[in-house]
């Protein structure tokens, strides 16, 4: 199972719920407004940093670019992918749980 989060961690509870209800080791992909969770030096960096130790974490590059977040602003332990990479992740990890 792969989890996707498309909501800002500052506005909604999707990230918290995903972290509470996903098994350790299951990958998490941040996309759309969810990519803000991947940036360094924010009030949720602690939470996200802990999550990178428990889940393979990915973030949508096109969504980062759109929002003006340079790749060197992405936290360590989070891999940048594009739409093709998103497809590959879904192929590899099975069922998709979208935390809308």
């Amino acid at each position, binding site marked *: *199972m792969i989890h996707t989060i498309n909501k800002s961690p500052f506005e909604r509870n999707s990230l918290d*719920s995903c972290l*509470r*209800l996903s098994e350790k080791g299951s990958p998490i992909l941040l996309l759309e407004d969810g990519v803000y969770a991947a940036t360094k030096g924010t009030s949720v960096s602690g939470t996200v940093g802990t999550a990178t130790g428990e889940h393979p974490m990915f973030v949508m590059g096109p969504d980062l670019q759109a929002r003006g977040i340079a790749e060197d602003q992405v936290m360590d332990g989070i891999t940048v992918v594009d739409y093709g990479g998103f497809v590959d992740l879904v192929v590899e990890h099975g*069922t*998709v*749980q979208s935390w*809308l």
Partner: protein
Amino acid sequence: MSEEIEFDTAGITKKFMYVNRKAPYGTIYALEVLEAVLISAAFEQHAAIVFIDDGVYQIKKGQDTAAINMKNFSKTYGIIEMEKEDADEDEDMDMVWRIIVEKESMEARGLSADDFVVDVEVLPSAELAKVMAEQDVVISG
């Protein structure tokens, strides 16, 4: 209208999970997820209807929508309960339905299992995470 297309699904049984995380009435998601669950019954699949976060409010007892002029659909969850009972009782049918509430979400809102219009399994998040990980299809509204 374009030509109707149908896929052959005979003999395939999958585990479907319907994830409800939104409160009723403020938005339509709760109602339209419920409609999707009801339609799916005809396909005789496994189904777990799960209430997480504000989704637990969907099945709260005592809803009365007269003053906001909207349709009170909380009683319709009873149909899910009946589908579940039918599935449990019919040995010829390979179909298991579960109605699950996340314990942490329920407790954060000051609710208990007695507050709901249907009988539910209350699972702590760690157990619900395991059930979730076993699903074939997850539909979120």
